[in-house]
């Protein structure tokens, strides 16, 4: 990293990982104290930011628009949720070792696919591996047959619809419409205590920093350059002797695994996961975070995830009817007027007026122009 960027990153990381939790740990009544609610809300936004980073990797850099990332988020969340359900043990409403909803549905013994989730280690692996493997299989089948562009988007949207329908079914033994909730402890720590939540928050913030470093490493590597080349002209990359399918598959899998991690962290902090979080609408909402923040930059998705969700919290509390209109308007406005998003536009403006050299932004602009030229018929 260049020096200035490194310092910015470190400052942001310290703020998120150390300062905010420390302020939260201040005694009650202190004027600088960050409330548990605010910290929890921030933690939720941070999980969204991890998810958005993954989406940016596949969309902003490789140019593949996936409308099914809610599924990968959900797979990670359900994997963690299943472990937390089993941790409740016999302390549930029905005093049964089985999760309450199973007792209610008259399931007498734990379904086979639930059993491995008793192990914390397995769960931690599954959070990454299950979405990763699903994405790898799905990606292999689609990229191999050169499904690209809007075709890929539509197929992934159908995937989101199917996943939503499937997870809604009671017979899947995943809690149906109500999903998984009522968790008590996470790896032995009681979830309703402020210290546990603080710990979870720190873990989330660390994961976000890790995800950022990972994405940066991928993007800056030679493979990252190939990804951008695929975005700009897949056919040329193919003719140059590279296999676009392999690169896309790799980055799609990484992106899904990041979404899974985000989902697992989300469940611990929000305390519930339902099929409503993995359907068509939430999947496409995730795209707007990246678009608003600025795709093709790594700061953009984080900014977008915070900004859009903060706006959503604000609007849904005060003007619930307006939120959907605002969301739709955001899609239109971003696509028409600020295609580079907040961060991309800011970088451009800085390049023009501030005199500071940001080759990334300049390159992004010329690439964008080239992409338009290439794809227009």
């Amino acid at each position, binding site marked *: 990293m260049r020096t200035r960027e490194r310092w910015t990153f470190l400052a942001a990381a310290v703020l998120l990982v150390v300062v905010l939790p420390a302020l939260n740990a201040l005694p009650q009544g202190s004027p600088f104290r960050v409330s548990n609610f605010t910290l929890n809300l921030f933690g939720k936004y941070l999980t969204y930011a991890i998810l958005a980073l993954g989406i940016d990797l596949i969309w902003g850099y490789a140019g593949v628009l996936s409308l099914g990332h809610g599924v990968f988020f959900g797979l990670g969340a359900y994997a963690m949720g299943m472990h937390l359900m089993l941790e409740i043990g016999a302390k549930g409403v029905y005093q049964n070792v089985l999760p309450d909803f199973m007792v209610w549905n008259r399931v007498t013994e734990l379904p086979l696919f639930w059993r491995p989730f008793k192990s914390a280690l397995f769960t931690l692996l599954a959070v990454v591996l299950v979405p990763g493997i699903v994405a790898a299989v799905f990606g292999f089948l689609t990229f191999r047959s050169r499904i690209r562009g809007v075709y890929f988007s539509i197929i992934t949207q159908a*995937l989101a*619809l199917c996943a939503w329908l499937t997870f809604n*079914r009671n017979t899947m033994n995943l809690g149906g419409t109500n999903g998984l909730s009522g968790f008590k402890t996470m790896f032995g720590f009681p979830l309703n205590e402020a210290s546990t939540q603080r710990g979870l928050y720190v873990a989330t913030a660390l994961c976000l920093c890790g995800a950022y470093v990972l994405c940066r490493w991928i993007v800056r590597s030679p493979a990252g350059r190939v990804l951008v080349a695929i975005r700009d002209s897949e056919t040329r990359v193919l003719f140059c002797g590279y296999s676009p399918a392999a690169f896309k598959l790799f980055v799609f899998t990484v992106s899904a695994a990041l979404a899974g991690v985000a989902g697992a962290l989300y469940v611990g902090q929000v305390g519930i996961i339902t099929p409503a979080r993995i359907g068509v609408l939430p999947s496409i909402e995730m795209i707007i975070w990246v678009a608003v923040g600025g795709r093709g930059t790594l700061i953009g998705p984080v900014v977008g995830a915070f900004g859009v969700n903060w706006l959503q919290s604000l609007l849904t509390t005060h003007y619930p*009817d307006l939120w*959907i209109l605002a969301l*739709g308007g955001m899609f239109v406005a971003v*696509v*028409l007027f600020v295609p580079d998003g907040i961060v991309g536009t800011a970088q451009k403006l800085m390049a023009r007026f501030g005199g500071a050299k940001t080759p990334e932004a300049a390159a992004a602009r010329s690439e964008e122009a080239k992409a338009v030229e290439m794809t227009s*018929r």
Partner: protein
Amino acid sequence: MFIRLLLALALLPGLTAPAAAQGATSSPAPEIVKAIAEVASSDAAVQEGAAVALGKTGDRTLLPLLEALREGSVYVRSLPGGKKETVIVGDKVNEGDKTLVPLFTAYGREPIRSADGKPLLADLSKLQEVPTGRSLRLVLRPLIDAFSGTTQLADPDWTVRQAAAVKMGNGGDAGALPALTDALAKEKDRWVRYAIEEAIALIQLKSGSPAERVNAATRLGALGGGDALDRLRELANAADAPPALKQAAADAVKRVERWSLLTQTIQVMFQGVSLSSILLLMALGLAIIFGLMGVINMAHGELMALGAYATYVTQGWFQGHAPGFFGYYFLVALPLSFLVAGAAGFALERGVIRFLYGRPLETLLLTWGISLMIQQGLRLWFGAANVDVISPTWLSGGLPVMVGIQLPYNRLFIIGLATVAVAAMYLLLFKTDAGLRVRAVTQNRGMAACLGVRSRRVDALTFALGAGLAGIAGCALTQIGNVGPELGQNYIVDSFMVVVTGGVGKLLGTILAALGIGGLNKIIEPGFGAVFGKVAILVVVIVFIQRRPSGLFAAKGRYADS
């Protein structure tokens, strides 16, 4: 109503005390007079015997009395000369501490008037109530049913006649047999005759002589209707049934099952075709827009919803302003929904989409945003709940084709509409100059523009046309499903699957893909349920695309990849 009117003329001087006799009079036969008196008896056996006697007369004038008897509103009043009279009382009126009731005659339920012609009010406490025990109610019910059934069997509407026959058959009351046999002799309609025959056989199967029962079982097997299946199965497995009857029932079960297998297959095929034609109507618009401009229109479902709401508004207008022409509202709504959705599509293309050509993913997001806004707009304007669209009478009901199969008119209409739409699109695209220009722009935009085709105008009009087709699809959907703000979302993913499978801008591919996906949906559904049906279709589409990445009919040559 008609009967009441007749009764109003038939006033009865023999029974009503101060009878203001007008018009035609028909006094009841002496045995009826006797039975009416006996019905009020305190002896339950005499009462029931009289009720049955009244029922046997088949005289419809007596129906109100039987109904009143069941409700417990029959009383006996003493006449001045020490005589007693059976009367029906009306709704209670409280006056001071007294409860007054209007009185009606037992024969025909005519208001009893006092000397000055006013309806007579009597003190309820002075009247003697006729007890209605449980056993009397049990006797009364089939009698009343038989009365109403007989009336309905003569109804001018054949669906009412059919329903009455089916009801009588399921009731299985032997008292209904004469009425059914009479009706059968007069009936000309094939499907009502069928229903009556089945009803007769069902009744005989239940309460006929042993020979009649065997005969009835065999006949039911030959008729092949599904209504009798449960009862036949029961008989075939009953331990105490006579062997001949058991055998006949078992044979009949086999025949009925074989027949229902055939009818079910046809039903599934019909449902598949009907779902396909809805998908086709939607996908047609999507496919030409996608083929021409490479634009995935995520707001297509909402354009469809606009068409549906246009139909709803038209229907409301007709209800309010021209109720006499309500049956024709659909003929107005159909072109109107085309225009509304088409205008919205035109505005959409001119307003925003034209700035985004060559950037399909951005267009996808943009149209998604617009779809959210239209959806929320509809929700704010019309409310989040589904609205009711009443089908015109000529679209309700169905066309019976064979035993056990009735094809609903609304679904037939949609199939017809889709066929017409496809034919019109074909003619437009391949037989007109405008279509030639559309095809030229689809193939090579730059070259077409060089040769003088105003490609931007072609874009806008094609987009409007595709949107208008969505509006028609929405209008058609109001006849078979719920109309709500989320209407479009239910079909949008399926119709995208059709476009992806069919290939870009290929009419034939779109048709075949719609038929394939719609049919597959309905074939898988019974076995796996709707949810896994959808999942299975996704899998099938992905596997299919493995073999044919650009859809059923891929473009060949230099346009294949850009």
